[in-house]
């Protein structure tokens, strides 16, 4: 009898498995249609780097070399000279080697003025590696193309349609809505 029972168990198990598999057919697939629909990434997702300018077009970067020192992969090269008319420095060269970059965002953490930021542009694949040797123009262009970016000091910032830079509403900030709304809810209850 135990043999028959074993056979029955096996048949039942296979039947259950096949029924489970068949139910999957009617489930809705979670597929994003990537090249047709561009996926929305969370604002803190580090896909590429950019160098933000101020709204009036002046340089936000103060050329303090903090990012160059912080970079673990040593992909940032900055050359500067002292500003002849006033204090501070002017940029001669600001290169980020996006080929060898680890996208760890240590430079973004280190930046005191939130000039170097992370953006969510992941479509950086290329036929030619030289397109990824980013100079300052390219980094600015990346920032201008981006609709939103992130730095730890200012949080998520948005570029509006008329070119102004705004701080994102609290629900868009990282860990945002939950953290901000929690005390309020506690007060309510």
């Amino acid at each position, binding site marked *: 009898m135990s043999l028959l029972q074993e056979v029955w168990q096996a048949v039942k198990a*296979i039947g259950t498995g096949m029924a489970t598999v068949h139910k999957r*057919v009617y489930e809705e697939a979670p597929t994003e249609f990537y090249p*047709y629909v561009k996926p929305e990434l969370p604002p803190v997702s580090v896909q590429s780097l950019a160098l933000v300018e101020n709204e009036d077009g002046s340089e936000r970067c103060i050329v303090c070399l903090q990012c160059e020192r912080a970079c673990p992969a040593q992909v940032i090269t900055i050359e500067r000279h002292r500003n002849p008319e006033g204090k501070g420095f002017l940029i001669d060269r600001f290169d980020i080697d996006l080929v060898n970059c680890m996208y760890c965002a240590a430079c973004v953490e280190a930046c005191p003025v939130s000039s170097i930021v992370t953006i969510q542009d992941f*479509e950086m694949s290329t036929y030619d590696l030289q397109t*990824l040797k980013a100079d300052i123009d390219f980094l600015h262009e990346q920032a201008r193309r981006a609709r939103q970016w992130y730095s730890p000091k200012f949080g998520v910032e948005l570029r509006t349609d008329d070119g102004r830079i705004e701080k994102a509403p609290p629900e868009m900030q990282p860990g945002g809505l939950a953290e901000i709304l929690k005390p309020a809810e506690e007060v309510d209850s």
Partner: protein
Amino acid sequence: MRPIPIPEDRHFRPRLIGYDPQKSRPWLERTVYAAYVFVFWLIVIATYAGVPALFGALGWDGGWGFVLMRVLQVVLLFLLSAVIALLLILVLRKYLGKVQERFGPMHYGPAGGIQTVFDALKLLAKEDFVPAAADALTFRLAPAVTFVASFAMFAVIPFASGWVLADTNVGLIYLIAVSTLSAYGVLLGGVSSGNKWALIGALRAGAQMVSYEIPLALVFLTVAVWSGTLRLGGIVDAQLGLWNFLPLALPFVLYVIASLAELKHIPFDFPEAESELIAGYNVEYSGMSFAFFFLAEFVELFLLPALIVVFFFGGWHGPLFGIEPGSLAAGALESLYFTLKTAVWVWIFLWIRATLPRYRDDQLMEFAWKAMIPLALFGLVLAAYMRLIWR
């Protein structure tokens, strides 16, 4: 300052070519499948009714004219097997995708309908490579042998009453012989590749196919004993009152299991177990030779379910709605019934493939020799006894 010039265009976007569904469209998918099945049906009608009618009208139905007619029919059947492979690969990929909660191929052609055509074209144009360690002649022959072995089964498959190439009275023995033959190409391909994975895969394939040949042959004999004939048309006609899967339930289950093993199909896909042997016996094959292995596999995936239908599910039988049997319309309708019944069984085989994991090699052989063969012998004796009592 900068030694290497940087290109102007830094951003590359993939072109949005291809059919853009944005969501799955089940009706479109079904239309594609139906179109393939319709082409299949047309070819069947052309092969078994069109060509003989044409040759009869021309008066070439004797001597060499008859040979020419048969050659034309075989060419049409080759076309048929290509359609089968294109459809079944597409259905397999889309069905496995559905089961895994994703879409299969869906952007090239309506609902991905011509994806497999692109695959076939690519394999045609790809380099066909013979490794230095291989025995070139045997290496080249093996895919052809594999394909011919599965293709030869078409000779005795009845698509409708009288729609069969060779309605021989030894059809069943021929089937046993041909299905033994399909181990050949696999063995030859594996041995001649000069590759250890191919050799192990071929060894496994040979052991598995030869072992499961025996229960398969015993089931064939059981059906022959029950129906009292070795002719496939006769077996179908003997099922007019009652389809065989009811009285022959045990041989039917054994047949399904053994044909899964013959197909080298999950859960018995040892010869090409990807995680153990890279691709098994066809590891060194590329381009067209590999395509022929693929073609043979999917033609078998059609033929073995077709044999299930012939042996156990009444072949071409179905309601004829008052059409006179023997006419062209009746034949077309019967072949449609046969095709649809086979399609259901192909789907069940794919379902099994989507569900079960792989067996273990020694368990497989143990199962064949210690369970399948005694049960098949028991089924044979039982069928003979039942026939003595009831008929």
